[in-house]
């Protein structure tokens, strides 16, 4: 099969979309735009931006997309004993989301969905492509990627120190995400220096579970099985 590949800057990274030649990738980019508009922490009008400006005790309605990510984040926070935390330790219990209503319970609560929203956005982009009849392809948001249909996507791992690329695996009909943790990186877990990769059917979980694997140092963390996920530290 011949592929049409396009790339645009979204979600603070470059996103590549691959679809069979003759198919259209626009729907995927539209989905990414939608997710970015809800969850960017750099946009004061996004749900995350509005939550930052919300007074303690205040309540606001969020987009369906944001609510879905917040519910997933809370579920993973509870299941991982707090290893996964979208407030990054500032106020783990400082927010509460019921349906689409988000409440601020602690002045220190600021949300950073950087560890989960990219994966969610990739899932949305894949769904958008499938909804318009696209049978195979992939979406790669700067390293959080998902392939669907009959395509085997070879994955190269990038070494963030040397910039080296190394063939790692082939991915078919699933998602793969890598996060890097260290003193000088944005993803920070005290004392943890690692690249963590997770493969899972959905990219939201692959993305989010890299944080659990890095924080626990456990590539056989009991949570992984529940999401049909596999992990590597490298």
């Amino acid at each position, binding site marked *: 099969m011949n592929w049409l590949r396009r*790339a645009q*800057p979204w979600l603070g990274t*470059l996103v590549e979309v691959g679809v069979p030649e003759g198919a259209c990738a626009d729907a995927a980019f539209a989905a990414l735009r939608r997710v970015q508009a809800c969850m960017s922490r750099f946009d004061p009008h996004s749900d995350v931006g509005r939550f930052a400006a919300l007074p303690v005790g205040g309540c606001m309605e969020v987009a369906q997309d944001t609510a879905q990510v917040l519910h997933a984040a809370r579920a993973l926070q509870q299941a991982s004993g707090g290893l996964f935390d979208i407030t990054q330790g500032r106020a783990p219990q400082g927010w509460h989301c019921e349906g689409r209503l988000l409440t601020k319970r602690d002045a220190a609560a600021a949300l950073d969905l950087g560890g989960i929203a*990219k994966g969610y956005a990739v899932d949305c982009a894949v769904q958008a492509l499938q909804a318009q009849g696209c049978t195979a392809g992939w979406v790669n948001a*700067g390293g959080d990627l998902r392939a669907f249909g009959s395509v085997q996507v070879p994955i190269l791992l990038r070494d963030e120190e040397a910039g080296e*690329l190394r063939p790692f695996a082939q991915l*078919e009909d699933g998602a793969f995400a*890598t996060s890097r943790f260290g003193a000088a*990186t944005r993803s920070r877990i005290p004392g943890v220096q690692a690249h963590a990769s997770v493969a899972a059917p959905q990219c939201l979980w692959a993305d989010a579970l890299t944080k659990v694997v890095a924080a626990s140092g456990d590539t056989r963390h009991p949570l992984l099985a529940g999401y049909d996920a596999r992990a590597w530290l490298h």
Partner: protein
Amino acid sequence: MRVTPYAVPCAAALAALAPAGALAVDYMTAEQAQKRMFPEATAFELRDLPLDAALAQQLAAAGVKPQAQRLPVRLARQGGAALGYVVVDEVIGKFERITYAVGVNADGSVRQVEVLSYRESHGHEIRLPAWRKQFVGKTAASPLQVGDDIANISGATLSCTHVTDGVRRVVVWLDLLRRAGKLA
């Protein structure tokens, strides 16, 4: 889901692989990008606009550092009317060199950004002309040194700050040119 890790290579094979390769992807040509951004355009007029002293001063005042002495602008026209502009630019990041096109509406707002090509290699190689030369003449059919031609990179998230800054630079520059009547 099926994820098949490649077998861990033996020492000899590992040596043969090292240093791991570079990745190059050509997404589209500048002509394809301008057509995609302004499908209603009947003509594109290329205008190479030099950076004069006054313009340089205005750019500096806007906090923009020009990377070249001229800005080649593609004017999208429909009959006599200007629909907007397309500028092709290149930025260099930690590991990557990205050529992209930014489409700007006649009112100065960004219409679309498309990556035209992506080159990634070792960080220390990226600034060397020799590294650039290895890609000259490569086509979309044979761009890759490792893996397959649809290989995807995973790693810590690649920042697109360079592209975002580049887009801003182009938008400010175009705005000044437009106000000076040079894009009519």
